[in-house]
């Protein structure tokens, strides 16, 4: 892997982040979250997020350089930035800040896809030295994808959600249960107090030959259960914790089921011409302990190695953008100066993402 010293910047949603990495070693990693700012609006408000990114970006970058002991920008080899997908107004703050620094110092600029960043984040797992090729489950706030990653980090989309993303489902479930944002971790915490099996929600049945997933049925099941139980009263059954546990279990089962199918089709011993031996679990929802355990168990059954992104780098961060940048070409000159952000990933549009 490249051993260049890279400053990476990420501002695609509601985290302003900067990191300094060398290859896969993270020398500094600063994340300023705006989650609380958006809570009162019931979701991320793009204009508020963009304004906050502007206030935070330079402070976060200064901090990342300081923490890494980098004297000045000129000691770096390149500057990487998330180009998309995400909120364009928010992305443009990171992109403008990165372009300005690259232009002023003459450093090359590297434009990285955010989803590619999540996929590469598994390379941050310690003691594993993960290298492509591998299969990947990306489960985040905006995406739920089953992917193939080849030797050159070219990514192919094999299956995705037909409705909500897994993280979005967690967030909506959490709202139904009256939990604050971000809902995933709150719901998982509530679920630990529930009795497993007290309530069950059936995971979505999707036709057996597709790798697509669906979560809206589970969300509806929770809404119905809550309506049937009626307004919260002391001691009402089933408890919120039981419902949270059932909800989490159904989502995890859906994701683990998709992984099982993926591994059967493309994993070790599948006989597929491009069979892979490793599966990576990445994205914000990969922080979920039950999902990590279920994916690990599923892979172990089929003789696959599984690698999950370390908890710190599951959600949005700049370290993963820095690691991912090693696979992308440098941009200089006019292309770097006029770089724009984009809202939708090519992975979604073309079912394929080639880092170029």
């Amino acid at each position, binding site marked *: 892997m490249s051993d260049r010293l890279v400053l990476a910047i990420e501002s695609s949603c509601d985290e302003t982040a900067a990191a300094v990495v060398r290859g896969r070693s993270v020398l500094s990693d600063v994340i300023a979250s705006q989650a609380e700012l958006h809570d*009162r609006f019931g979701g991320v408000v793009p204009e508020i997020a963009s304004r906050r990114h502007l206030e935070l970006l330079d402070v976060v970058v200064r901090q990342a350089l300081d923490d890494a002991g980098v004297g000045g920008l000129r000691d770096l080899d390149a500057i990487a930035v998330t180009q998309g997908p995400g909120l364009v107004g928010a992305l443009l703050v990171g992109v403008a800040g990165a372009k300005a620094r690259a232009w002023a110092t003459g450093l090359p600029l590297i434009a990285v896809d955010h989803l590619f960043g999540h996929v590469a984040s598994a390379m941050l797992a310690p003691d594993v030295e993960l290298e492509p090729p591998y299969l990947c489950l990306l489960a985040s706030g905006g995406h739920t994808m089953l992917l193939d990653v080849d030797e050159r980090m070219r990514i192919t989309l094999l299956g995705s959600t037909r409705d909500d993303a897994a993280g979005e489902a967690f967030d909506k479930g959490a709202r139904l249960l009256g939990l604050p944002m971000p809902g995933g971790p709150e719901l998982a915490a509530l679920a630990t107090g529930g009795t497993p099996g007290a309530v069950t929600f059936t995971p979505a049945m999707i036709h057996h030959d597709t790798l697509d997933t669906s979560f809206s049925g589970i969300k509806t099941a929770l809404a119905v259960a809550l309506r049937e139980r009626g307004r919260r009263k002391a001691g009402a059954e089933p408890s919120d914790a039981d419902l949270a546990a059932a909800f989490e279990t159904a989502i995890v089962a859906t994701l683990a089921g998709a992984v099982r199918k993926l591994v059967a089709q493309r994993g070790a011993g599948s006989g597929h011409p491009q069979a892979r031996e490793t599966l990576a679990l990445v994205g914000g929802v990969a922080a979920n302990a039950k999902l990590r355990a279920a994916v690990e168990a599923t892979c172990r059954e089929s003789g696959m190695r599984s690698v999950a992104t370390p908890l710190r780098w599951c959600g949005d961060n700049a370290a993963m953008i820095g690691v991912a940048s090693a696979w992308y070409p440098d941009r200089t000159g006019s292309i770097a100066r*006029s770089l724009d952000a984009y809202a939708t990933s090519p992975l979604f549009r073309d079912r394929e993402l080639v880092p170029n």
Partner: protein
Amino acid sequence: MPLLCIDTSTSLVVAALVDASGAVTGSTSSGRAQALLELVDELLDAAGRPELTALGVGVGPGGFTGVRIGVTTARGIAEALDIPLHAINSLQAIAADVATEHPDEVVWGAIDARRGEYFVQPFRAGADGIVVALGPARAIAVADLDDLSGIVVATDGMDPRALARTALAVVAAAEDGAGDPLHVVPDYVRAPDAEPARLQLRIDPLVLDDLDALMRLEERCFPAPWSRGMYEEELVRPANNAVHLAARDDAVGGRLLGAGLASRIGDSWHIMNILVDPSAQRRGIGARLLEQLIECSSQLGGGDGWTLEVRPSNTAAIALYEAHGFLTAGMRPGYYAETGEDAFVMWRSADNPVVPA
């Protein structure tokens, strides 16, 4: 001297360079703000790439995204080159030339604010040629442009030379040590278009089942939260001597947004705690809880009245209590153990009529 100025607050991208001799070159482009650096690069190439010593950037008002690209770019360059950055009022740059040509007349700078509005601000140049703002920038309806008294300049973009002159005036007036890029922020004038999610507030009893949510709320509200045990103890007090209320938002599954606890101690009621989720503050939830606490405790027999302790630094809470008839009755030195802070003791007597705020 080489001073680079940029502005992206209108649909015209503007760059100007003041070289060491004070000569100004400039250039504009009708392309997107995303290509701002292309324009700047060409301008600097044409000038033989002088080493920049200062920057100026138009901070708007204007298109939010455009202004942000300009300001973020300028801050990034200033950070990278370690040179000062100065904020330029984009409306002033637009009005400057006309104002100087018509000394002592009111000249309005105007920038299309979309949605049928313009950002406007009045300026006047004195005999010395110095342009000063006569009032703040604001957004007005397009139809009201005609009613402004004075000359209105509503060009799209500004002459690079006017941008440079305005920047030079800012630099000349700047104090020593000014120019920290982190202090240069957009002047949006307008608040972001965002409505706080609508609340469906319900006030009802706070029960033991709420403990988990209550602890989360407490942690979000206070650096030194009450322990779970303390709340548990409060919640199991006999119902005729205690009032425990929850504020829930039925728009989001009855999420606990606030809580209020009062206990009868001797002949008076003690307001033990009122807490409101940070994301829902300044929306009247604290007041609703306080009013209901007083109402419910009155029904149980109000006794002599109500009392509470509050941090002197918590001015918002003090204002709330004063608006509900509480008066400061004394001070408890060092009351808050964690910080050693004093507490104000506030008191509302049972026969004290509430003065409406």
